[in-house]
């Protein structure tokens, strides 16, 4: 328990110091998106990695958060913080209502249903031109601010986004080690067995689905205020698949794995910029090979690899 706290503090320190050598350069900007993607991946990982319920529609909640905040703060000139809270609660309520019929489905059917939700939301973003600006997007979204401090530079936004990320990581770490978290893992292993043991599986699945939608909506609000411009392509099916790839690579059922996956998959396209179109091929191969050869993701796979490469040391000690 103590080492868990130390680990988290060390992680906080890394996050705090990471932008210093970058001096507000381009990479700081990339790290902001690592933070946003990390939050999204974390939301999906709670649902998929812990409770074992797949969602291919995370982009819908991300998009609803972004468009909700975007529209409320531009068209209706609402306070951005108030808008963020209102939108997150509304999206969570929507997910709660949606969760009951959707999470009755299992496996492939669940995947298809959530995918359907994602596609419908994306079509809605494109077609409700009066509200969202349609395919050409919504611009002029204000930056967030506290008192006189306006989050208008990359460095300020970095600390803004990562404070949210750290809070969510902290809460998630607590959650997965609680009674609720153990219940989720029981559902993952066997829903029937979990029920027999007195876990209210149906309700808990809906609750974790709601939580992941809530987290995604907050990420969406942050995204729209950081970018000040949003368009439907940022919330397409492709984004849902990217998130899935992140947690499969980082580690299903690992809080830090979500962040590691987000880091790798956000940096990767930046590094592969010259081979821009290859990223989709790389994603595909990563998804297949990781699932076959390293089903626990890098978080579990790298230590295992070390143990295998250094068997002599293990047996001598």
């Amino acid at each position, binding site marked *: 328990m103590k080492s868990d706290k130390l680990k988290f503090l060390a992680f906080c320190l890394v996050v705090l110091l990471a932008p210093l050598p970058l001096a507000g350069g381009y990479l700081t900007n990339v790290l902001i998106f690592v933070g946003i993607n990390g939050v999204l991946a974390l939301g999906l990982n709670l649902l998929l990695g812990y409770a*074992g319920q797949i969602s291919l529609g995370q982009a819908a909640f991300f998009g609803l958060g972004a468009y909700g905040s975007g529209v409320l703060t531009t068209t209706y000139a609402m306070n951005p913080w108030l808008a963020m809270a209102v939108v997150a609660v509304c999206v969570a309520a929507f997910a709660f209502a949606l969760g009951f019929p959707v999470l009755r489905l299992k496996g492939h059917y669940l995947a298809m249903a959530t995918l359907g*939700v994602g596609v419908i939301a994306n079509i809605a973003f494109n077609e409700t031109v009066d509200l969202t600006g349609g395919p050409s997007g919504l611009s002029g979204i204000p930056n967030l601010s506290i008192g006189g401090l306006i989050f208008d530079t990359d460095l300020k936004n970095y600390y803004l986004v990562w404070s949210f990320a750290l809070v969510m990581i902290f809460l998630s770490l607590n959650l997965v080690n609680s009674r609720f978290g153990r219940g989720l893992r029981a559902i993952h292993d066997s829903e029937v067995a979990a029920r027999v043991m007195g876990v209210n599986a149906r309700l808990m699945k809906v609750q974790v689905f709601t939580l992941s939608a809530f987290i995604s909506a907050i990420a969406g609000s942050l995204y729209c205020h950081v970018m000040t411009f949003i368009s439907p392509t940022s919330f397409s099916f492709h984004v849902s*698949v990217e998130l899935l790839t992140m947690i499969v690579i980082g580690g299903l059922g690992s809080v830090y794995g979500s962040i590691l996956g987000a880091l790798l998959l956000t940096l990767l396209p930046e590094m592969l910029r010259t081979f821009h179109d290859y990223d989709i091929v790389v994603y595909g191969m990563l*998804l297949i090979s990781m*699932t076959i050869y390293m089903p626990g993701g890098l978080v579990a796979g790298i230590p295992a690899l070390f143990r295998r490469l250094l068997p002599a040391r293990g047996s001598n000690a």
Partner: protein
Amino acid sequence: MELFQQITQFVISGLATGAIYALIGLSFAIIFNSTGIINFAQGEFVMLGGVMTIFSLNVLHLPLIAAIAVAVAATTVVGVVFERLAIRPLKNATPLALIIITIGASILIRGVVMLVWGKDTQALPAFSGNDPISVVGATLLPQHLWIFGVTVLVIVGCRLFFHHTISGKAMRACSFNRRAANLVGISVGRMVLFSFVISAAVGSLAGVIIAPLTMTAYDVGVMLGLKGFCAAIMGGMGSGLGTVLGGLILGTLESLGAGLISSGYKDAIAFFILLLILFIRPQGLFKKGETERV
């Protein structure tokens, strides 16, 4: 009278796309019945059919029939490779792992096609001209007739194969109970491979016959695949008439909705129906409920 003509027109084009959905739905059901897998790369087989026919026609300068044969054969090879490399190594995989793998395969295939043939939308010439045929005030394209004809042929072919050949019966046995099938001497592994072969062939054929109507590109597979899945769900994941009816109903509703309500929401209609069916009648429109075994 004007409205009546319009509706007839929508129904005709809806039935044609519906026939395509039915074929794709069938190809979903064939793999599902032998393996229990919903293959998320199914739409990619459809896309490969169209794209490879255009490639064989324009670059290899093959005659149309040969081009189609090459495309279907090539897609089938992709299906076999996919089964061998990605599905077979995972003997006791969870549904979750299989979903992720087939999604991986689908974006991999899509990415490779994009890199090799580019992002442009291409059209396949209609098989026998574009002179419209007038039917009760609405127009029917020769390509529509091709679609109906090929669909009927494939469905009859599947029916004969699954009910009147040894291999077909063996595959059905696998779908009822894999272990029992294995015990009576059926090679389940080979039947799974067969199902990928047939499914890839049927899917790619669907992609070929619709390409002249809707154009094709590296990314058409996603939507077509999902709608085919919707048809299969409506039919209760069987490989019979239910899926065909599901496809036709879906195509017609979609076409009517797009024509009479709003074309922007055309794709949303299909997904809305998909969600409704999954919520209300996950066992399909025409099947009695089954209890799930743990």
